[in-house]
């Protein structure tokens, strides 16, 4: 491990930073501050696209995340599902990551129950399929070959929602709720090959990877992290997990900025002393 020069060692116990961070997060959660949050154009675009769909439109939502990022993707999934169900869109849920299966099913069922949606008619959950590339390509050819059964073992040929779905032509929009790079596969195969519209709801850490595809029009909408979820909730006029967490997010960012400035001042003063 490289040894830092003495003047670079600022003697601040890291546990003090952890305590400050805990206060910065907990205080706004308990005492709501109501800090302003502006809606960005990319979120507005997706919202507009969703609004343009009608009650015969089928949306394919792929829960492409793992348990470790669930606190970040859950508000995103909730926001988009609330929009789907409040506009009476039909929802098909799948997962291209094994861990996303149970979590995706949980989020889908919870939101469907809020709007009294009927399984098989308004929404279905088809579960996990391995080998991302093969699954995405095969969905463009024969939907029932990839998913002959739903997650619970029922035949997709018998379910009212899926019986007439043949391939991507019968799906209005694909939405990948993700914490990783699976949207690249959706872009490579579903968008480039089948010219299908794709929206991405991603963790903030993945945001910069997807912006070039939003700029090129390969992605129709991009919603990032807790802030994106909060913006979507503003547009829906239904404040939820995203809006509640944004005060804490802003305070935590403020603390980090202050610590970075203080750290640099300390570093600069130590060097001057030398």
């Amino acid at each position: 491990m490289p040894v830092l020069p003495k003047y670079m060692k600022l003697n601040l116990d890291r546990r003090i930073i952890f305590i400050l961070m805990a206060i910065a997060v907990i205080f706004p959660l308990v005492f709501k501050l109501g800090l302003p949050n502006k809606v960005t154009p990319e979120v507005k675009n997706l919202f507009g696209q969703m609004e343009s769909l009608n009650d015969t439109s089928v949306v394919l939502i792929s829960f492409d995340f793992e348990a470790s990022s669930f606190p970040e993707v859950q508000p995103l999934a909730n926001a988009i599902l609330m929009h789907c169900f409040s506009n009476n869109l039909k929802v098909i849920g799948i997962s291209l990551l094994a861990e996303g299966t149970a979590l995706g099913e949980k989020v889908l069922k919870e939101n469907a129950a809020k709007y009294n949606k009927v399984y098989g008619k308004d929404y279905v959950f088809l579960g996990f399929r391995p080998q991302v590339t093969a699954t995405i390509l095969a969905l463009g050819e024969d939907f029932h070959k990839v998913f002959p059964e739903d997650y619970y073992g029922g035949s997709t040929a018998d379910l009212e929602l899926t019986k007439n779905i043949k391939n991507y032509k019968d799906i209005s929009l694909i939405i990948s709720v993700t914490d990783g790079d699976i949207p690249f596969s959706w872009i490579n195969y579903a968008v480039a090959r089948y010219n299908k519209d794709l929206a991405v709801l991603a963790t903030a850490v993945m945001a910069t990877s997807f912006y070039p595809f939003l700029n090129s029009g390969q992605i129709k909408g991009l919603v990032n992290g807790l802030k994106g979820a909060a913006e979507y909730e503003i547009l829906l006029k239904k404040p939820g997990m995203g809006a509640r967490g944004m005060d804490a997010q802003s305070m935590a960012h403020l603390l980090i900025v202050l610590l970075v400035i203080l750290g640099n001042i300390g570093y600069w003063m130590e060097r001057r002393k030398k």
Partner: protein
Amino acid sequence: MDLGTLIAAILTLFIFSFLYKDNPFYKFAEYLLVGISVGYFIVISIKTTVVPKLIFPVFREGDLLCLIPGILGFFMFLRFFPKLAWLSRISMALIIGAGAGVSIPAMMQAQIFAQMKASMGSYASINNIIVALAVITTLSYFFFSREHKGALGTSAKIGVFFMMLFFGATFGYTVMSRVTLLIGRAQFLLGDFLGIIK
């Protein structure tokens, strides 16, 4: 409060205890996470792949063609036996060959040509000019056939500036992501577990 919430809260606190220092409670929660993740993946894979794609077609429907991918999959496990490990290369060759054949044209189209087209689009807006400048100068930084001096050196330096902006934005988003995970757990502990917030 249900048992699931109680277990989740205790495990969250076990993980947070690492912030003070490494301890057996943290290690227990960490190993539990790894073990359960692997176990869950195996069960889901068997339930959604091995059974409906191999066992049922072969034994219920008598579709013996499904044995071919089944055997090739089995070969992959022979890597653990040095004398038979060579058989796994057959499966690997198929995976790499088919994978490359499918992905190279798709990636060229989606990630190279479409991105080039977007970078060369209409330059009516200031944003498009900045995008084009960033692409050209960043590419010039990775041009190593000439020493970075003169016009190429200046362009490469501007390219470094754009890359720094990208790294800064990415790091900022990473911080945001990590803070969100903390907020999610804090919301769970304060809400579902302690009932302090609604």
